[in-house]
């Protein structure tokens, strides 16, 4: 599977976020904080960008029975994981959209429809979106409530920094962290928590991962 391949469909949505059912036949779940895009199926509708803010794997009735068995064979275990009755559910936070070739960091004008396809973003898409404007989309991330915003930011900056660095865009990480500090400096405790999370992600300010000591 390539980065651009579809990995699921919309289950429910609103103007801020959506819930996605993950196709377990695909090889890898998009990681927490990774950037995704949803080409809305309506004509003339924008392509929405979002971040994975949660990944929920729920049990179905059959798994309860399996879990109580003393021995579960490898084949049964793989089958139960791949051919689930209840899909893996991803929660996506909207951070902007693309309309007529123009990027916007506002919330989308309307949510995607159910069963719309959702795709992972390529490095080029990540670079284009995160380089646009002046980090306006970060305000959406800082207002996320279902996960600690610092954790989400750290994961996003880590992914975006790699994409920027791969595209020879140096200094992006520093500007992004500066924007976070600017937006959060009134809230000492939360800012330090966010910077702590970014620090723990070992993100190099030059776009490369710092070497582990």
């Amino acid at each position: 599977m390539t980065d651009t391949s579809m990995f699921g469909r919309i289950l429910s949505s609103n103007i801020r976020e959506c819930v996605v059912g993950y196709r377990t036949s695909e090889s890898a779940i998009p990681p927490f904080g990774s950037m995704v895009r949803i080409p809305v199926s309506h004509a003339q509708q924008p392509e929405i960008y979002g971040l994975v803010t949660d990944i929920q794997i729920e049990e179905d009735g059959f798994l309860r029975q399996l879990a109580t068995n003393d021995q579960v064979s490898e084949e049964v275990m793989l089958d139960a994981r791949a051919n689930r009755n209840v899909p893996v559910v991803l929660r996506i936070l909207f951070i902007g959209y693309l309309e007529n070739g123009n990027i916007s960091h506002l919330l989308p004008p309307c949510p995607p429809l159910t069963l719309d396809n959702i795709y992972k973003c390529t490095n080029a898409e990540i670079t284009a979106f995160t380089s646009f404007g002046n980090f306006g989309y970060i305000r959406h991330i800082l207002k996320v409530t279902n996960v600690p915003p610092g954790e989400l930011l750290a994961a996003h900056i880590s992914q975006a920094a790699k994409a920027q660095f791969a595209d020879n865009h140096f200094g992006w990480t520093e500007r992004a962290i500066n924007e976070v500090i600017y937006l959060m400096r009134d809230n000492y405790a939360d800012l330090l928590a966010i910077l702590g999370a970014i620090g723990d992600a070992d993100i190099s300010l030059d776009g490369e991962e710092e070497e582990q000591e």
Partner: protein
Amino acid sequence: MTPAENIGFVIGGSLKEGLFVRLTVPAERIQEGAFVVIESNGLKFYGLVVNLSLKSYDPRYSQDLIAGRMSDKITTLLHNQTLFTEMEVLPVLMQNTGPELEDPNYDPNAVMDKSPMPVKTLPIHQAPVRLATEFDISEVFKPKEKNGFVIGTTREQGHPVHIDMDKFIQRSSGIFGATGTGKSYLTRMILAGLIQSKQAAVLVFDMHNEYAYGDISPDTDIKAPGLCEKMKKRVKSCALGASAKIAGNQPDFDLVLEYSDILPSDIEMLTRELNLRETTPATLSALVQSFGINKWFESFKNLTMGEGEGSVVDWARNNNVNEAAALSLYSKLERVFRLNYLVPKLTGPSSIVKIIDYLKNGYSVILSFGEYETDLDYLLVTNILTRKIREEWERMTNEYRNQGGVKPTPLVIALEEAHKLLNREMAGQTTFSTIAREMRKYFVTLLIIDQRPSQIYDEVMSQLGTRISGWLGDDEDIAAVLSGLSGRDSLRGMLARLQPKEEVLLLGYGVPMPIPIRSRRYDAQFWQEMLNEDELSATDKQKFREMIFDDF
């Protein structure tokens, strides 16, 4: 000339409190007293940095040591945005620069007064702030006429700062500084500039014999030349007493006084020094009535202490004067009777007349007191001389104004150890306080040089136009130097924190705005520049031209 780098932006302030500026450069690049410029909507504001404070967006950003908890780079980014320096600026002058060339409101034919004026409004929020360039300093301090004197340079960038000699002599001035701060060298430089400018004649009362032929610098052991050595054609040296010498040098002439030069008022001014009684004025009045105004001193001196004809007692009885009062005055005046430079009758022309003639003709005179170093000598001689000068300049001015005569040469009387003559007790009695208060209109002003300005009478201090002060340690002295000036609370710290040597604060009438500077060094280079002034002016002009062309 490259555009000056912005150092911050205005974040608030008022005309009363001054402006608050958030620095965008490290605090160590800016010093208290720095001359800054703020440009805002066609106005240019000139101000002084009067305070720097370390601030934080939230106190916890400065109180918690977070270095080590996260990477150095993230810590640096956090500190860059949450910790900053706030600069307080005292706005002093503003200048209308008009719209820019590209501004639609620009009118090439508009006539606009572009001279700096006292600040009357404020720049807008977030107006950029920068350090003054050489052009800005020149715009504010360099007089339009050719009467500017480079007294020193700005401390940060070394741009030359001028004082307007024409304004400097229009009102009395003062040079202050604790001992060892280079006061007398600074005075010599200013006097040299004044003499060179030909704006005024100068009479220096030189108590320590250092202005005419120089002295050895206690710091460098190098001889610092005197004004007579370097400006022979324009400066005359005079020593008190017949055949007196000044530090081994033969003066141009000496000063000897006739008995008839002394008036009762001269004696009354010595009340404190001679510890005279309250009866003295009455006794002196009787003496004048008895012997005449020209002969009273000589005749009184010739009386004897005993009884009988020709004695003080006999004279007192015959003139209805209290005998004890007359005897007391006689005994107290014996210190004056014994002064060698007082003679019954001069054989040649009067030295006082000679001094006055030199001064009237634009020459400067340095009167050295030589071996006569007591307060009595200083008080008596300076009083007699200034009284006669005052009479002469008043006469010349009245002639000039009433009969269309020649305008008197402006005269500056330089007075060392001024507190001896201008302290609270003496000021009301000496001619100097009158000069400080009233003689400006008669073209005579004082240049007071002192290390204890707090000892000088407030009324005299308040009359001082230009004040130049080196470092002062005493709070009362600092308060005295700043008395009567606006923004003195802001300037107080600046004065107290001057470098003890070579840094001075310029204040008052002769400078458009207060500014701390690094004064020129009184050395061979100074004299080389002074004596080749025309050449220097040409160099200055060339530099100025280069600045302008580079700018465009």
